[in-house]
């Protein structure tokens, strides 16, 4: 059962207080009357199913009744951040990929200095940790 930080109540609460509402950041087309059937269909029915970082909308249903967003890892179920409606995530799959690439390059540089050395911690974990640290 998730432990979710409500960005409006500013407290960690039990999952039982919340309703999941699916993928976040699904914008309704600005001009529904003129958009194509494909665009409308994409908006209505098509959702991502990523392995890893996923941005989701939740409702604090028996709390403050506010909708907000969660960035969650669909593998570890770790919630990386929660943010208010209208805000953008600071942790994204692209962001993590960039961090991982940087970490890899750094590793390579270090390896050149230290003549090898074994990588024991997943770079993505390190990247997540650094982002979380920055948030905290």
């Amino acid at each position, binding site marked *: 059962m998730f432990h979710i930080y409500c960005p409006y109540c500013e407290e960690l609460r039990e999952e039982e207080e919340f309703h999941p509402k699916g993928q976040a950041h699904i914008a*309704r087309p600005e001009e529904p009357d003129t958009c194509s059937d494909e665009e409308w269909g994409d908006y209505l029915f098509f959702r991502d199913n990523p392995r890893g970082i996923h941005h989701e909308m939740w409702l604090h249903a028996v709390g403050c009744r506010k*909708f907000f967003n969660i960035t969650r890892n669909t593998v570890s179920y770790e919630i990386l951040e929660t943010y208010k409606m209208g805000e953008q995530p600071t942790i994204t799959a692209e962001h993590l990929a960039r961090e991982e690439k940087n970490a890899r390059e750094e590793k390579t540089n270090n390896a050149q200095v230290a003549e090898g050395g074994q990588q024991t911690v997943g770079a993505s974990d390190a990247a997540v940790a650094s982002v979380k640290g920055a948030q905290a």
Partner: protein
Amino acid sequence: MSQTASQPNRLAQGGQVDRTQALTFTFNGHTYTGHPGDTLASALLANGVDLVNRSFKYSRPRGIVASGAEEPNAVVQLGATEATQVPNVRATQQALYDGLVARSTNGWPDAQRDIMRWIGKLGSPFMPPGFYYKTFMAPASMWMTYEKFIRKTAGLGRSPTQSDPDIYDHMHRHCDMLIVGAGPAGLSAALTAARAGARVILADEQEAMGGSLLDTRETLDDQPAAQWLKTTLAALAEHDNVTLLPRTTAHGYHDHHFVTLHERRTEHLGDSAPSKAGYRQPRSRLHRVRAGQVILATGAHERPLVYANNDVPGNLLAGAVSTYIRRYGVVPGEKMVLSTSNDHAYRAALDWQEAGREVVAIVDARTAPQGDLVAQAKAAGIRVITGSAVLEAKGAQRVSAARVAAIDVDAFRVTGKVETLECDTIASSGGYSPVIHLASHTGARPVWSDAIIGFVPSTVAGVAASGGARGVYPLDEVLADGVEAGVNAATALGFDVTVDDADLPQVASRHEGPVCALFQVPHEKATLRAPKQFVDLQNDVTASAIEVATLEGFESIEHVKRYTAMGFGTDQGKLGNINGMAVTARCLGQSIPETGTTVFRPNYTPVTFGAVVGRHCRELFDPERYTPMQAWHVARGAEFEDVGQWKRPWYYPRKRADGGLESIGEAVARECRAVREGVGILDASTLGKIDIQGPDAREFLGRIYTNKWQKLAPGRVRYGLMCGDDGMVMDDGTTSCLAENHFLMTTTTGNAAPVLEWLELWHQTEWPELDVYFNSVTDHWATMTVTGPEARKLLTDLTDIDLDREAFKFMDWREGHVAGVPARVFRISFTGELAFEINVQAHYAMHVWEALFARGEAFDLTPYGTETMHVLRAEKGFIIVGQDTDGSVTPEDLGMHWAIGYDKPFPWVGKRALTRADTRREGRKQLVGLKPKDASVVLEEGAQIVFEPNHAIPMPMVGHVTSSYYSPTLESGFALAVVKGGHQRMGESVYLPMVDGRVHEAEIVSTQFVDPKGERQHV
């Protein structure tokens, strides 16, 4: 001593049982005695009971193997009475109490005289892996019959047929640190964290805390381990920030450090919880713990070696032998052979010898064992045979001898001559497997460690394994590891921790030689021909079955598991999984890490349904919602219908002239006539009500409803239709304009909460610029619908509102008083008759309701329920969303073009989808009325409709009946239905072929059966 006479295997001294008290218990109908401190298993062994069960598939005799949760055989049915039956209890985990009654779970008619044994003996060559799948697959229709037989012969325990007399509690807890396991690692971690000031919960599944300290040979600070244990537990108990939970199993590790603990409060005291101060105590508590940090100090399970006939009673785990001797004062035999791959198991031989029984030999797979315990065994004069193993046990109901020979572990073959050693007990140890179940529940894959020859948990933030759970075994290292885990977790929580090395007890450091990786012992015969070598005792999975599975092409360990049933049942592979993986790896010619591991899922050990359900049963299973008039409905003998969580009066049966009670048909016919001819009243309080306020409330309504709201004046009411953005109808109801910026929306009863959420969703995510507020007022207002031609006359004397048909028109609402209390009265109609919906604040409701009936006596005011409401509304063609619609129906399909504002300026929710090709196409299913040709027929709701009754099967289905009733007004059955292109087919016949072969014919008609012009509601 007299006790030892009745308990032949009980030692005169030693262990932590209270020999001064005798407890009487019954197993398979025989009465035995044991002592406080015993488990059912230790008491059975003390009494020399070798045979505790029959095996699952081959019906072989089985005895006790282990001393804890990993026990595969001693799985019993507990309970002296029918109501207190508990299935699948591990005898090793059940404390003995006076009057305990248990039976073997398997064995028909009983474990001693087992009919299935003969089938097992004769049939075993014909029972390959996948036997049940292969044999009982065809014909599929017979499976139910087979299953009953298989269940009876091989099944696990049974559930009671009577109601459980016990109560169970749930508790929610929060802590900084949850420590699972109160062995040396858990205790030292808890002490460290407690001193740092962290709020700690320490849970341990056993009857007593201490883990391995309860039976270790080691000393701490030169004292027996029990002394340090006692001091430490006392020290922990003194800390206010520490909660000690003995007899508590952490059975599930869920997301974000949410752990469920099952605390057995009274299961060690009796069949049913005893009372305390006049109150029945809960049998168990389920603690739902949210922890900041979790330390898993769950220890390790010993692995048995896999050799031929290793399932005959008398084959035990080496560690279990030590536990029974040292903790319970029970020696489960006379002459023991120990087969081992490691030093640690030597203590079983030392304990056995010190108990005064004979150790025939220690058979060590290593060629040159050289640890301290080895030296100690040799010094004690015990024969040590090196480079060898027990290949095979002899004996039927009990071990009679061990066949021993030199083996080449790497080449997997027997290299020496076989020696037969007479004995009645074979203890074996193939090393230890860390208990990684809870760590696996987090989803983190375990990692193989060559150093400890076992899987260890991988790293997850906030969870740390400590001690045996991560493969640290020597006691001094375990204690230090616990402290380190405590320090790390406390530091992560922000506590300032200082550790004094002097706090750690002194433990003599002991030299242990390296362990040899032995799992399956080779036999002179090939695995497929050798006597059965059991890998998973509970599910009767043998090494040969696994080999067959790999020969048949199963390569994934997950497939092997499912094909052979390895790791199923109550023990969930605690004992057999690693050995099974090792055998699979050997057969496939790969390493264990290449073979992988199966993932453990909750629960670690079985949890009773009572504990899971807690108090959420019977009337507390789901909340029931009542309207303020509930007591009146009950007093009037109403029958109730569940609508969501609401209890709604369904109909009010009256006494007939003959003294009997009206049937539902008779009551509904009477109620319908009352409304159409006189006056009736409905409790409509359950309708959802949402108060909407704000300068943009009107604009908001225009965007969320399909129809127009710009011109609705205060004092007026309008019907609204709500669609999803896919254009499908999702709710309907009336919305009244209370003031320029103030509206009251009603929703269907079941949709009140979803509609509120829907409004908030659009407001918060798409249109936050709109200044509008929503509030659920469903429970604040009670609603009474007074309807029928006499409604106005009845109300006139009760209200100060002018009820004149011109002053108070249809679809108006007025504020005033009814029966002296403030009221809102709405002239809306769901029956098609003159109707007034009276809304009063809920706490006035009963007063108003009774005042209406007092005045209504003169008019024979008739209360009606939901069934009559349905008939009356259907006669008028009024839809029920969710009954006449199913999420694929547009307003156009319902023939409600009049409620669609295509020319509204804002692209309202659902509009775009109504112009898609699919929602515009010909031949969509459309709502129509159906009039059966035979007036006495009431069509079945859900019945399929066809155009051509003589078409070959499969007939093209063109729609179905959505609502169908008998109308007392029409004196005929009638129905609403969706039919392809129905609006263009008025007057045509359709057919409804029924399951019983009858085919009903019906005519497509308008949905308005009664008063099609709508004149009656305007009077």
